[in-house]
């Protein structure tokens, strides 16, 4: 049995474009494509359900759907794997949910000019399985690596765990085909080149189509960077007696200048307490261990071995104790686990409760990390004490700059939320917690997000404040490219673009 929520005329036109198997109106198909892994107001789920799900296979089908949406004034929300953490793929006004999972072809592997051209619905892990025999890799490596997709990575302007070595998503796309909000199809790259890494012809348009969260169109093909498959991987986890020593050590390691350095990550005392309580690698670690710094390196063995020896020297001389090969290698290999395992948190009594994971992220400079950490934890503690459905899972700071990992960090505080307890009061409390965290970020000269995007409630209210005059430019671009406001309407406060 299906539940029709769209007009017969619209349904018939969609079937005409996609065939019956490409148009889903049943409740499970629509309700399962509503939320993302971020905490969600589950008590108000039905407010975010799309009216219909479509599964195109070709660029032309996507363009026809978008043109139909313009004719009928129907919202279109693109969705890849739905693993994003800022609700970009969550419909705010029903309409057509455009799921790209059937657009999963590898169109070309070019081993001469070192690119691979794909459709947006392919997953990076599956892509790299195909690339591995050729000795190359597409090095975009988010925590959601086993389940996220290229199209979503572009729409979010994703952040990679090995970005210091290889760059983040926006650094790894040579060009892409985009269906604009009017249904026109363009290709954006470096100048007009499909496989170029740098050009100076005309405006640099390509960055506009990273991080727009589906508000400026749908990417339907992307030509991606290929790098040599690494010969060697090295990971080292160092333990420290206090956070400040670990913070200084992080700075020294990040400034080491090695091209093979893929990332440095600093875990604070709250994170260690969480790991000591609930993670097999840390439960039996000694009491003096209060902070951990992890380093990862990739490249040719001839480069990585001497660089890794030097990293070990810097780690030791800056106060770190090596935690051993088993923890270092095992924890690094487990870096995608958050998307694969059910999580539990603790109430203040220590009692276990099933909790979903929220990581509130920001981009912040190295110099302010210790002060931000104290203020963020104080905010979290206030809400934990008052409401009893939250748990502080600690903070980490991760080198942020592609190829230049020394000056700024992706900073996250992980907070467990007992979603089944959410009601309007609790949800509003959560949003207020996010708002207070965001205010600290902006006060210290940071950005609301390094990784996830900032289009969720609790973040988005501060986007005009952070961007200033640039937000007015955002609105003008949105109105110019999407005159009927059909692409993911309601996101990023962009309805303001149509107010006059």
């Amino acid at each position, binding site marked *: 049995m299906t539940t029709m929520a769209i007009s017969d005329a619209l349904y018939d036109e969609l079937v005409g474009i996609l065939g019956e198997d490409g148009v889903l109106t049943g409740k499970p198909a629509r309700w399962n494509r509503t939320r993302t892994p971020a905490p969600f107001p589950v008590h108000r789920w039905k407010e975010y359900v799309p009216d219909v799900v479509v599964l195109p296979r070709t660029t032309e089908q996507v363009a026809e759907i978008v043109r139909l949406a313009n004719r009928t004034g129907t919202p279109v929300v693109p969705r890849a794997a739905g693993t994003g953490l800022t609700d970009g793929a969550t419909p705010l006004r029903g309409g057509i949910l455009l799921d790209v999972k059937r657009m999963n072809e590898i169109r070309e592997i070019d081993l001469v000019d070192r690119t691979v051209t794909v459709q947006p619905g392919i997953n990076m*892990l599956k892509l*790299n*399985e195909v690339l*591995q025999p050729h000795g190359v*890799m597409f090095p975009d*490596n988010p925590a959601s690596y086993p389940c996220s997709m290229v199209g979503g990575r572009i729409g979010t302007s994703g952040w990679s765990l090995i970005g210091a070595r290889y760059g983040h998503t926006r650094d790894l796309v040579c060009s892409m085909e985009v269906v604009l909000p009017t249904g026109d199809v363009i290709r954006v790259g470096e100048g007009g080149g499909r496989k170029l890494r740098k050009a100076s012809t005309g405006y640099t348009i390509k960055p506009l189509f990273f991080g727009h969260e589906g508000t400026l169109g749908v990417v339907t093909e992307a030509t991606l960077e290929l790098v040599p*498959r*690494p*010969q*060697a*991987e*090295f*990971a*080292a986890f160092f333990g420290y007696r206090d956070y400040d020593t670990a913070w200084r050590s992080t700075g020294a390691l990040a400034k080491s200048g090695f091209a093979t350095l893929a990332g440095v990550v600093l875990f604070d005392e709250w994170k260690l307490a969480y790991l*000591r*309580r*609930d993670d*097999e690698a840390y*439960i*039996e670690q000694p009491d003096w261990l209060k902070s951990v710094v992890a380093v990862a390196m*990739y490249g040719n*063995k001839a480069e*990585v*071995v001497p660089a*890794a*020896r030097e990293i*070990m020297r810097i*780690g*030791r001389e800056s106060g770190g*104790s*090596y935690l*051993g*090969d088993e923890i270092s*290698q*095992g924890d690094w*290999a*487990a870096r*995608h686990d958050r998307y694969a395992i059910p999580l*539990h948190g*603790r109430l203040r009594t*220590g*009692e*276990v*409760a*099933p909790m979903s994971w929220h990581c509130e992220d920001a981009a912040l400079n190295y110099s302010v990390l210790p002060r931000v950490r104290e203020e963020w934890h104080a905010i979290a503690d206030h809400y934990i004490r008052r409401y009893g459905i939250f748990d502080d899972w600690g903070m980490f700071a991760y080198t942020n700059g592609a190829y230049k990992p020394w000056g700024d960090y992706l900073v996250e505080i992980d907070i467990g939320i007992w979603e089944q307890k959410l009601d309007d009061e609790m949800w509003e409390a959560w949003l207020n917690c996010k708002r207070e965290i965001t205010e600290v970020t902006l006060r210290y000269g940071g950005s609301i997000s390094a990784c996830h995007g900032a289009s969720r409630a609790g973040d988005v209210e501060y986007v005009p404040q952070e961007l200033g005059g640039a937000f007015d430019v955002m609105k003008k671009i949105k109105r110019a490219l999407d005159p009927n406001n059909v692409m993911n309407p309601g996101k990023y406060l962009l309805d303001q673009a149509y107010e006059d």
Partner: protein
Amino acid sequence: MFGFRLSAQKPPDPRRITDDVVMRFDHIYEVDPDKMAIFGQQDIPAWDTHRIVDSRWDHLAWMHQHFADTVLGMSDLGLNEDGSEPEQ
């Protein structure tokens, strides 16, 4: 013979490791059952616990191999197990 009933291969009684954690098999930790009153702890036969843990090691090995040909440890760098320089 493996049985698919808990009684066919009942796990040993837990040993306390910390205030929060107990252990039935070496290096396999469980939340203290006393802290799982709201949501009861699931009974798992011993063979299933070992299957899950073995799968976990397989997964980690696969992930290493997926990203690089070789994983370097301290011996590959010519360092001691604790990361220190060997005495000359």
